């Protein structure tokens, strides 16, 4: 599967026209969906969040003058949509029941461990969950994670360390960051 870090912007510092925006957006839909799914644990809600983020991105097209920033900017919009979606009662009711009964892709142990890990991540606060998903699941570098999260690199790193300690209190930070 393509990781978000592999999706490269075409060129930087050029105005984006409407006609090319759809082409620029297409490669970001999948990472956006994976981010939303990891944040919301609900495929339909995740697709809705990406759809809404796409509309928002489209409306704010005029403000985007740097294609190099499109990816973190778009993922930031998706993250905001996810935050709003989690606040809606119906999403809570529908998605708190994370689909733990997944088809066994290998051993039962592995499936259970994955379910435990997803549950632990879903219990993190929004901002902690966001940096974990972006850094570990989407393979984004810390500086780009900071851009998406709208914080400094240092604050992002501190948040990441804190989240790791919550997820794996018995593992050294350096080991967990690999």
């Amino acid at each position, binding site marked *: 599967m393509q990781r978000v870090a592999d999706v490269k912007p075409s060129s930087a510092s050029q105005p984006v026209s409407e006609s090319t925006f759809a082409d620029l957006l297409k490669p970001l839909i999948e990472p956006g969906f994976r981010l939303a799914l*990891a944040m919301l644990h609900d495929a339909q809600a995740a697709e809705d969040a990406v759809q809404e983020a796409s509309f928002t991105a489209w409306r704010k097209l005029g403000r985007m003058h740097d294609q190099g920033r499109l990816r973190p900017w778009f993922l930031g919009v998706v993250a905001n949509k996810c935050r709003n979606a989690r606040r809606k009662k119906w999403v809570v009711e529908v998605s708190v029941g994370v689909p733990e009964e997944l088809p066994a892709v290998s051993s039962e142990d592995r499936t259970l461990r994955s379910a435990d890990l997803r549950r632990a991540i879903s219990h993190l606060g*929004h901002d902690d969950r966001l940096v974990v998903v972006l850094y570990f699941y989407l393979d984004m570098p810390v500086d780009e994670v900071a851009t998406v999260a709208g914080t400094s690199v*240092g604050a992002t*790193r*501190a948040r990441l360390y804190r989240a790791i300690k919550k997820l794996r209190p018995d593992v050294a930070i350096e080991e967990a960051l690999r």
Partner: protein
Amino acid sequence: MSLRTDIQMAFDELTPSTHGMAERIVGSMLANRSRSRAMFAWSNPLRGATSMLALILVLVVAVGVLAGGRLYRDWSAFNSQPGNGLAALEARPMHLPVLVPGQDCPIGPKADLQGAGNGEGFGEGPVFGMPIGLDTKSTWGTYGYQWLLTRRDLAGPVLVRAKDLVTGKAVVFVGTYAAGPVTGKDSDRNGFAVKQHHEALLDTNHPPEDTNPPEVYFGGSDRLVAWQITLGLQRGASGCVAYQIDGPGFSEVFVVQAVGTGLTPN
């Protein structure tokens, strides 16, 4: 197996096929835009009525602002009475230590936070500080963050003021917890303009949601609330920072040393 691999495996298991999703979403977006244009053409004759409604709304807002201003003046008058709220805390004199030339940074007093963070904490309570982490340089100076921990039973406003003990210049606060008058501006902190303040304010009635409770990162304690404050040290600062923290019934001072990417020299 690494945490990264575990997380990727855990979520990949959950991810359905995304085949055709990009085309579906982008197509839907384009179609919706066409509908929006059609709707705009249909609603064009209604623009006169809409303008009138907007004018009425503007008048309502103006009346609201006038009434709100009166309420604000009443609140300010109440707040400025001796002993009440933030104004009383701001009126307290600063009593920070003074360095003599050549003296080392008088870091301390050390706090026993039962293993909080890396085990290093400062202050006698009810507010404790961790070392300052610096991470962003600008032409004005250097920015970083400071974790402050407050006892969970602490109530009322908590005023935070700080100085670099070597240069004597006030530490500035930006972002969420910055308070008081704007004392300066920096046009390029990470590419963004920021307003600087000489005070930070912790509203203990509304603790930060995502660090509450700080049960893991801060030493397994359920007694503390963690606040991440963004601060700036002006070019030439030593990083030896003294805090004075005032709240209802207490005033405490502690000194910390900034660590991180280094300070911007003169």
